[in-house]
C-alpha cells in the first residue's frame, strides 16, 4: 500500500488493516513520523516530536493487536495540541513563558486517549495560550495552511488542523474556547468537534478561559471524530465542571438517518460579514441535507451580534486570572537578575508573554477593575445568559442549527495581525456556541478557488450524537471531506 493511502485512510479503515495485521502500528507510526519529517518544515505544525516513545508504544499496541485485544483506537497515531499537559514531554502552550515546561502529569484527555490505545507522536503548534484565530501568535512561529502556504490555517488549534490536513496523523486533539477547533477545521478542510461544556475533562489542559474552554477531536471524518470523542469524554473527579452524563458509543450510533431532522438556519449567520461565495457553499451543503430528508427552518438568534463583545470581556477576564500564575516564581520563564519583586514580575511576564496575550490580560484586568466590573464583566455575564436563551428557544422547534463555521476561507498570512478586531471577526459564528456551552462541529462543504469551506452544525447540550450523525450523512452523500490539499505527498 502506498504511503499516501495510509496517510489518507480513516480510523475505521486503519483499524481494519491493523486488526487484519495488514499493517502494524509500528509501520503506521513510522509512516506518519516520516511524513512529519518530510513536510513539517514547510508547515511548522508540529513543535515537539516523541518518536522513540511513539515507536515503543506502537510496538506495545502491536502486541495487543496480535492477541486480538484491539479496541477501536489501538495503535492509531495521534498528535496533541500543545495545550494538553503530557507527562515528561515539554508542554509550551505556544509560549516563550512555557518554552521548557515539562509537566509531571498527563491531562485527563491524554490519559484517556492513551488508555484507548492511541500512540502519541508529538505536540502541535498553536496560538500562544490559545489566543488567536490564525496561528500567528505562537512563540514558535506561524503555522502555514497546507492548502496554500501563504495562508493561515486558522487558530488557535491551527497546528493540529494543518497537521491533520497534511497527513501527519489521522487524529489530532484541539481545544475550542471561541472557535479554536471549528474555525481551523473549516480553513483546513477537516472535521472538528467542540463538545458540550463539561463533556470532556479540562484537567491538565492549560487554562485560557475556564468557563468556555473545551477539548475536542479533529479528524478526517465525522466517524473518526465520533471514535475519538467516545474515548475522550466522561466525568472526571478532578474537574468539578465535568458533567456526570452517560457517554454513548458515538461511532456506533452513526446511522446516517436524518429524515425529518429539523435544521434551523439562523438569519443572523448569513449577514453582511459572510463572504457571498462561502454563503453559496453553505447553501449547497444545506440543500444536500434537505435532499437527504432534513427539513430546513429559518430561525432567529436575535442576540448574535452581542457575542463578540460579550466574549471579549468574559474570556480575557478569566484569562487575566488564569495567567497570573506565570510570575517567574515557581516555573516558566524568569527574567535574569531581577532587582526586586516588581521587577521580577514585570520583566518575567513582559518577556514571557507575546503581544496578543498581553493585550488580553490588560483587557481582562480592566474589565474586572473596581468601578468597571458592573459595566463590563457583570453586563457580559447577563448578556451571556440572553445569548444562551436564544439557543434554548430555538431548540424548542429545531434539532440542529446550521450555518457557516467562519465568514471566509483562509486568509493571507500577516493580513489581520495588526487589526485585532478584524481578527476577532473570524470567530463571529463560533463564539456564541461557547458562550452557550453547546456542542458544535465543522464539516467540509467544498472549496472556493481551491480553499476549503466549513459548515457548522450546532446541537443541543450533550447531543453531540445528532450533529455527528448529520455530518456523517453529509459525508456519505458528498466527497468534500475527502479533498486533500495539493501539498507534499498529496501533490498530483
Amino acid at each position: 500500500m502506498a504511503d499516501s493511502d495510509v496517510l489518507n485512510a480513516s480510523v475505521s479503515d486503519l483499524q481494519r488493516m491493523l486488526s487484519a495485521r495488514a499493517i502494524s502500528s509500528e509501520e503506521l507510526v513510522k509512516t506518519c513520523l516520516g511524513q512529519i519529517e518530510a513536510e513539517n518544515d514547510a508547515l511548522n505544525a508540529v513543535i515537539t516530536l516523541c518518536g522513540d516513545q511513539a515507536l515503543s508504544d506502537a510496538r506495545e499496541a502491536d502486541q495487543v493487536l496480535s492477541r486480538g485485544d484491539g479496541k477501536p483506537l489501538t495503535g492509531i497515531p495521534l498528535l496533541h495540541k500543545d495545550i494538553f499537559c503530557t507527562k515528561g514531554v515539554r508542554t509550551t502552550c505556544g509560549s516563550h513563558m512555557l518554552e521548557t515546561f515539562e509537566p509531571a502529569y498527563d491531562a485527563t484527555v491524554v490519559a484517556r486517549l492513551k488508555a484507548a490505545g492511541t500512540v502519541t507522536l508529538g505536540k502541535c503548534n498553536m496560538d500562544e495560550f490559545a489566543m488567536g484565530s490564525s496561528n500567528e501568535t505562537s512563540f514558535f512561529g506561524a503555522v502555514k495552511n497546507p492548502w496554500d502556504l501563504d495562508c493561515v490555517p486558522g487558530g488557535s488549534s491551527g497546528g493540529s488542523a494543518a497537521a491533520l490536513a497534511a497527513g501527519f496523523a489521522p487524529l489530532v486533539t484541539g481545544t475550542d474556547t471561541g472557535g479554536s477547533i471549528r474555525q481551523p477545521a473549516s480553513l483546513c478542510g477537516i472535521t472538528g468537534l467542540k463538545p458540550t461544556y463539561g463533556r470532556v475533562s479540562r484537567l491538565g489542559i492549560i487554562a485560557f478561559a475556564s468557563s468556555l474552554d473545551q477539548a475536542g477531536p479533529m479528524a478526517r471524518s465525522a466517524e473518526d471524530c465520533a471514535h475519538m470523542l467516545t474515548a475522550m469524554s466522561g466525568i472526571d473527579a478532578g474537574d468539578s465542571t465535568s458533567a456526570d452524563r452517560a457517554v454513548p458509543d458515538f461511532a456506533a450510533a452513526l446511522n446516517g438517518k436524518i429524515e425529518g431532522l429539523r435544521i434551523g438556519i439562523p438569519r443572523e449567520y448569513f449577514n453582511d460579514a459572510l463572504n457571498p461565495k462561502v454563503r453559496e457553499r453553505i447553501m449547497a451543503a444545506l440543500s444536500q441535507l434537505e435532499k437527504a430528508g432534513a427539513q430546513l427552518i429559518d430561525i432567529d438568534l436575535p442576540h448574535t451580534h452581542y457575542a463578540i463583545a460579550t466574549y471579549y470581556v468574559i474570556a480575557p477576564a478569566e484569562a487575566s486570572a488564569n495567567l497570573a500564575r506565570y510570575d517567574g516564581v515557581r516555573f516558566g520563564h524568569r527574567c535574569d537578575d531581577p532587582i526586586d519583586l516588581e521587577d521580577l514580575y514585570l520583566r518575567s511576564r513582559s518577556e514571557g508573554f507575546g503581544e496578543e496575550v498581553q493585550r488580553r490580560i490588560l483587557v481582562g484586568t480592566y474589565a474586572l477593575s473596581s468601578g468597571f466590573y458592573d459595566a463590563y464583566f457583570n453586563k457580559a455575564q447577563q448578556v451571556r445568559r440572553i445569548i444562551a436563551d436564544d439557543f434554548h428557544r430555538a431548540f424548542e422547534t429545531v434539532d440542529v442549527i446550521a450555518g457557516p463555521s467562519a465568514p471566509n476561507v483562509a486568509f493571507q498570512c500577516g493580513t489581520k495581525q495588526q487589526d485585532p478586531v478584524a481578527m476577532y471577526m473570524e470567530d463571529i459564528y463560533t463564539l456564541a456556541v461557547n458562550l452557550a456551552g453547546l456542542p458544535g462541529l465543522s464539516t467540509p462543504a467544498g472549496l472556493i478557488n481551491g480553499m476549503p469551506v466549513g459548515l457548522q452544525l450546532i446541537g443541543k447540550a450533550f447531543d453531540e450524537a445528532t450533529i455527528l450523525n448529520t455530518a456523517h450523512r453529509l459525508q456519505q452523500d458528498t466527497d468534500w471531506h475527502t479533498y486533500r490539499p495539493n501539498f507534499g505527498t498529496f501533490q498530483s
Partner: protein
Amino acid sequence: MSWEMVMGLEVHLQLATQSKIFSGSATQFGAEPNCQADPVDLGMPGMLPVLNEEAVRHAVKFGLGIGATIGERSVFDRKNYFYPDLPKGYQVSQFFAPIVCEGVFEVPMADGSLLPIRITRAHLEEDAGKSVHDIFPRETGIDLNRAGTPLLEIVTEPDFRTAEQAVAYLKALHSLVTYLGISDGNMAEGSMRCDINISLRERGTDALGTRTEIKNVNSFRFVERAIHVECERQADILDDGGRITQETRLYDAEQNVTRSMRSKEVANDYRYFPEPDLLPIEIDAAYIEAVRATLPELPGAKRERFVSDYGLSEYDATLLIPNHAMASFFEAVVNHCHAAKPAANWILGDLLGALNRSDIAIEKSPISAQQLAGLINRIEDGTLSSKLAKQVFDAMWEGLGEADEIIESRELKQVSDTGALETMVAEVIAANPDQVAQYLAADEVKRKKLSGFFVGQIMKASQGQANPKLLNQLLLEKLAAQS
C-alpha cells in the same frame, strides 16, 4: 474630648480537615517546607481545584453553632493579587455569596451577662503559603505547605466598644470552634488569626469615624494590647485636631506599637469575580439537618446544665466550660464520684495549678479523671482528711498509683476509730494537767482557743491521721468531764 471606641473583628480560622480545601495534600503543621504541596497547591498549569466536602461541613457546623442562616447557594470567587506565596496569583474565596450569612453570637462576659455580637458573615477560602525572609541572605524562601489550607473567615459587625469585649468574644469563639471540633484553635500555630477594625467617635454620637485595620494579631493578650495602643494613638491624633488615615497597620508586640503597612498593599483592587473552575455550593435543608444532628452540646447549653444539674456556681461553670477537654474531664470525674462541687474545686484548684506549673494540657493530665474521682471518694467517705488528700494527690501526680493504693502503702488512713481516739485524748489530758486547769477556768471564747493546744498534741501523736471532726467532738466531751 471623650472618645468611644468602635470595633469589628475578622477572624481567620483554620479548619481542622485531613486534607486541603481544594487538593489532596495533608494539612499538618510543622512539616518540612513544601512537602505538603501538590501540583494543585503549586498552581501548576492545567491543575483544577476540587472542593473538600469536610470543609463545607465544618462551615455549616459553625453557622448552626451561632444560629446563623446557611447560604443555600454560596459561590467561590477569585481574589486577584500578586504575591510570591500566592501560587495562582489569586486566592479562591467567597465574596458575593458566603456560606454562612447573618447570625448573633452571645458572648459570656466576666460578670455572668451575655453580650450579643452580630456576625455579618463567614466564608470559606484557601490560605496562602508563607514567605520566609530570615533564612537566606538577600533572598526570600517560599513554603507552600500552608497554601490551600481551608480557612473560615468570620466577620462581625462593629459591635465592640472595649478591648475586654473583643477578647471575651475571641475566647468564646475559640471555645465554640473547639467544641464543634472544626478547628484546633491553636493561636500560636496560626490556626486562629484576628484582624481588628478600629475607629473612634465622640461619645454620644452615632456616625462612625475613620477606621484602621490591624492585621494578623495572633494571641488574646496581643489583641488586648494592640487595641489599647491603637486607641491611644488615634485619640492623640484626634485630640490634636488631626485626621485618621484609613489604612492597614501591623501590631509590633516587642515595641507595643502599631505600624502602618506600605500603602501600596492597602490600595489593592482585588478584582473579585466568580471562580469558573468550581460549581456553586448548594446546601439543602436535609443536609443542614444531617449536620445539625451531629452537633455536640455547645458551651452555652453546657454552662446552663452544669449549674442546674450539678449545682455548680455560675463562677465555677464559667471557668470549666471554655476548655472543652476540661469540661469533659469534670464530667468524667463526676461520673465516678458523684460529688460535683469537690470535683470542680479539685480540678480548678490543685489539678489546674499542677498542670499549669508543668505546662501540660488537661488532655495529657498524669492524673486521670477516674483517679481523681477515687481520691474524692476517699475524702467524701471520711477516709482522708483534706490535708492527707493533698499528700495522696501529690503521689498520684508522681505516678505512684491509685488513691487507695497510696493510702494503703503509706498508711495514710484517717483514724476514725472512737476507741483509739478516746485513748489518745485521755493520754493528752493526763499528760497536761496545767493546761486542763486553765481550760476549765476559762470562758467559752478562751476555751475554744485553748482546745487547739490539745488538738495539736493529738494530731502530732497520730501523725496527722486523726479524724479532726471526731477528735474535736471527743476532746470537748472529755474536757467537760474533767470538771
